[in-house]
Structure formats: structure tokens, C-alpha cells
């Protein structure tokens, strides 16, 4: 299936040129909170992607029947229902990660990316386009989360997805020279990494222009 130019833009735009985190600077709070390790960040990324895509589809289906005055409430109900579903699924099949993510799964309801996409896209576009838009935005968010978590877990704990990357024998405690960077464990460093990504992203896009 060949994608038309517009479809391509809807799906792939949020991954780079119109990224929800580094260009629109939305969803920063959760990007700071769940990126200490790679695994929770991955799960969070997938959860948000599913919820944005699904809620976009549902709102797009209902878009002509929702009264304008109460549209925010309707949107919130749809998102809350989906978040509860995802939260229950996680508790059933990935209990450890669900515990690590704790309140942040519930807080997806308040994630600016969701409301932003529903208001800006799903309310005025057709179902298939809305689905692609949700998918693209969710993946764009997940991509940034994964990059941030990669650096934080690698330099903060010396592991990736729980597997040891930096050998134990390098550590000072075992007679080596290396020490984990405690700064990486702090939310402040996540903000600095996001800043660094924005910097690099702009520098690259600037060159293209």
C-alpha cells in the first residue's frame, strides 16, 4: 500500500519535524519521571502510543455528535477509560513495570499530547487520518523517551534494559576506576538531556533548510 503525501506527513511528521516533545515541548513531565531506566520508558511509550491512537479514533468517530460546549469532558472520559484499560492490562501482564511506573500510567490522562491531538486533529479529521496522527505522535513521544532513558540508564546505572553493559570490574568498589553518574538519576539531568536533544534536532533541521 503506497502512502499518499498527506498520509505520510500525518504519520511521519511527528517523528521528526513536528515531534510532540522536542518541537511542541509537550509531555515533558512524564519524560522526566519515567526515564530513569529503559524498560519503564519503553512500556510508557507503547502505552501512550496505544492510548493516543485509540482515543483519536474514538473522538474522530464521535466528532460530529459531540456538542462543542462539553467536548473537553467527553474527551477526558474517553481518555480515562482507555488509560484504565491499559493500566489494568499492565497490572495483569507486567506487574513489576506497572509498579515502577506507579502513578504515571494514571497521569497519562493529563498528558498534554493527548488533549493536544484530540483538540487539534481528531475533532476535525477523518478516522483513518486521526489514527495515523495518533500513532505518529505516540511513536514520536516514545522515541524521545527511549533516547533519554538510554543515556540515563547507561550512565546512571551502567545497564541497558537491566543487562549490565559497563563491566562490574571497572567500578571503584571492585578495584577499577569507574563510578556511576548520580546526576543521571535526577530529573534535572533528564531535562538537560531533553535540552541537548532539542539542540541537536534544531541544528540538524536548520542545516536541511
Amino acid at each position: 500500500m503506497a502512502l499518499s503525501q498527506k498520509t505520510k506527513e500525518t504519520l511521519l511528521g511527528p517523528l521528526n519535524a513536528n515531534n510532540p516533545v522536542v518541537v511542541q515541548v509537550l509531555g515533558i513531565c512524564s519524560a522526566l519521571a519515567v526515564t530513569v531506566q529503559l524498560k519503564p520508558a519503553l512500556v510508557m511509550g507503547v502505552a501512550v502510543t496505544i492510548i493516543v491512537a485509540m482515543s483519536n479514533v474514538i473522538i474522530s468517530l464521535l466528532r460530529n455528535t459531540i456538542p462543542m460546549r462539553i467536548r473537553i469532558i467527553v474527551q477526558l472520559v474517553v481518555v480515562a477509560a482507555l488509560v484504565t484499560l491499559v493500566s489494568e492490562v499492565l497490572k495483569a501482564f507486567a506487574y513489576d513495570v506497572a509498579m515502577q511506573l506507579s502513578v504515571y500510567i494514571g497521569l497519562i490522562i493529563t498528558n498534554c499530547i493527548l488533549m493536544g491531538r484530540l483538540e487539534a486533529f481528531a475533532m476535525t479529521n477523518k478516522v483513518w487520518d486521526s489514527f495515523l496522527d495518533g500513532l505518529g505522535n505516540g511513536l514520536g513521544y516514545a522515541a524521545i523517551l527511549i533516547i533519554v532513558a538510554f543515556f540515563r540508564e547507561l550512565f546512571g546505572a551502567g545497564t541497558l534494559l537491566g543487562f549490565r553493559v559497563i563491566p562490574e570490574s571497572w567500578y571503584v568498589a571492585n578495584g577499577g576506576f569507574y563510578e556511576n553518574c548520580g546526576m543521571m538519576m535526577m530529573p534535572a539531568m533528564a531535562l538537560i538531556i531533553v535540552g541537548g536533544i532539542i539542540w541537536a534536532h534544531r541544528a540538524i533541521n536548520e542545516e536541511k533548510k
Partner: protein
Amino acid sequence: MFEGLYKLKEQLRPNFEEGGKLHAFWSLFDGFESFLFTPNTTGKRLGSQIHAGNDSKRTMIYVVLGLLAVLPYILVSYIVGLGIEFTVAQWKHEEIAEGFLVTGFLIPLIVPINTPLWMVAVATAFAVIFAKEVFGGTGYNIFNVALITRAFLFFAYPTHMTGDKAFIRTGSTWGWDGSHTLIDGFSGATPLTQLATGSSADVTFMDMVNGLIPGSVGETCVWAILLGAALLLITRTADWRIMFSIIVTGCITALLFNKFGAADNLVAQYPWYMHLVSGGFLFGAVFMATDPVTAARTDCGKWIYGALIGFMAVVVRVLNPGYPEGMMLAILLGNAVAPLIDWCVVQRNISQRAKRASALTAQRSNSESGLTSK
């Protein structure tokens, strides 16, 4: 000799200019040129300015003269920091600034002597990139770069920055002195850490003044700091208002804690003269807080800025057992609010003048109307 050097420089110049063989190293050439030969630009004669046109290069070199050395750390911090500076200068086609010569000198003086060199390198790189270059380089940084280096080390590698072993040299330098073992029962914690953990400090006032205590390289010997302070004050590189204000406020705060602080808090009961000579208080007041780029620039603002730092340093020491030394955090806080202080001072000045002017015109029109009514 200087003439010869100048001629040599002029001979080499074409190589580095646009189109020359060595143009890639123009910023290096330019940096050394303006560093060795006085830059001949002055501030524009346009209105009044609170940011002096005095070139930072000339100011900064005096600060370098006011300090002492720890070789491997200086080498590491210079190579990493200047490497980044030269790269950015070349990339952005800017001229290189000497600000880092000071920063690179200060870093070794404020980190514990047992810090591994690679940690210093990482922290220096972080500070130069994120505290300085992203804000536009030397002269535009909001925070003192050397202090950001220390803050990064402090939060990233806390086990190396505090505790018993951090401040006593046990490793080897250039292959010498590697065999030091500590006597049983010797405590290597700094006096402030001892106090914060609840044991009384076992040092006298004179030990502190002479520098015979564990601590970072630059901060222990009061005589050396006073010497540096004298040089900075005589050359008018640093501002006496800031130093004076910090020290006086610090003493007053300490006295208040002595009077009203909890009796079981050892740091609160620490006498004011001990607060003054312990930890980084004097070093920070003399070399760190007075940094002309990050300090307040108005005279009145300098008093407020200094008072804030002196007060906060002692408050952090006393009230937060997690941070036995509050000077670093106090100065960083001072840096953060310095532009705000300046803004308020300038605004107040403007409104006062406006008030005076309007009062004057009102008076004049009154007397004029009085004349016409007659």
C-alpha cells in the same frame, strides 16, 4: 623581546587569515594575539552603561595571577575546557575568550584532591558546554562555570566529594607519594562534615587559618586566600562591596544562630569566627562570588547580592545536615538572582529620578502660575 614577539606574530598572521594555510586555527591565533597584545577596543561612548567596556581578557589575567597551582588537575581542566572553547570558537567564527583560564585554574582549587581526573574532565566538559557555551560563551554565562563543575561533581559522584577519604591525598601524583597510608583513628572528614554528623570538630582556629585541615586545595589556607584577596582588591579586579557584604552578613547570621539556634545543633553553636575560616566561605567570598560576569553589577545590587550569599551559606550549613558546606549553593543562588537584583536597582533609580523630575516641574509650574496670577 616584546617587539620581537610582535614582529613574529605579524609574520605569522597571513597563514592564519582567510585563505591562509592554517586558517582552521584562526581562533587559536586570535586568542593568543589578543591575550598577549592588549586588545585595542574600548566601550562605545553612547549613553550610560552598567556593563563596562573593559575587556574581560585583561581583567581575567589578574585573577590567574592571584591563584596557586595543582598541576595534573590544571592540565586536565585546561585541556578539556580550552579544547571545547577553541572548537566552539572555530565553529561559530567567534574570537576566543580568556575567561576559561580563570575557570580552569579555579576548578582544581575547589575539588577534593582525591577526585579521579576523568571525573574532573567530565564535570568540566559539562560545565563549559551547559553553563557557558549554550548561553553564548564567556561574559554571557549566568552561573559561575567553576562552581557548576563542582556542583556537577557534588551531585553526580557524592561518594568522592564528601566523607572521610575525599580530602586526603592517598593516590600518587606523577608517580610520587603513592604510598601514603593513614594513621589509625585519623579522621579525614572536613571540620564541617564532622559537625554535621554530630561529632565536635577537633581543630583549633589557628589550624584553620594556617590551612592544616582537610579540605579542597584552595579553601583551607586563610593566609593564601587573604593574599589573593589583597591582589584582587589592589588591582580592582574584584569588588570590595561583595566580599565585605558576604563576610559581614555571614558573621551576623552565625551570631544569630548562636543566640537563637537549637542547643543540640553543633553547627548552630559554631562561633562566627570559625564559620569564617572553615570550608569554602572565604575562598567563595573572594574568588567565586566576585566573578564580574555572574555577580550583580550595580553598586547597591552588590551589597544585596553579597548579603544574600553570606546569609544563605550559613543557613544551609546550619539547617541542612545533608550539605555540610553551603557556600557553593549560596553563590549559585546569588548568581541566579543577580540579574533580578540589578533590574530592581535600576528600576528603582529610574522611578526615583522620574519622581524628582516631576516634583521639580510641578514646583516650577506652580511658581510660574503664581507669577502669572499676580
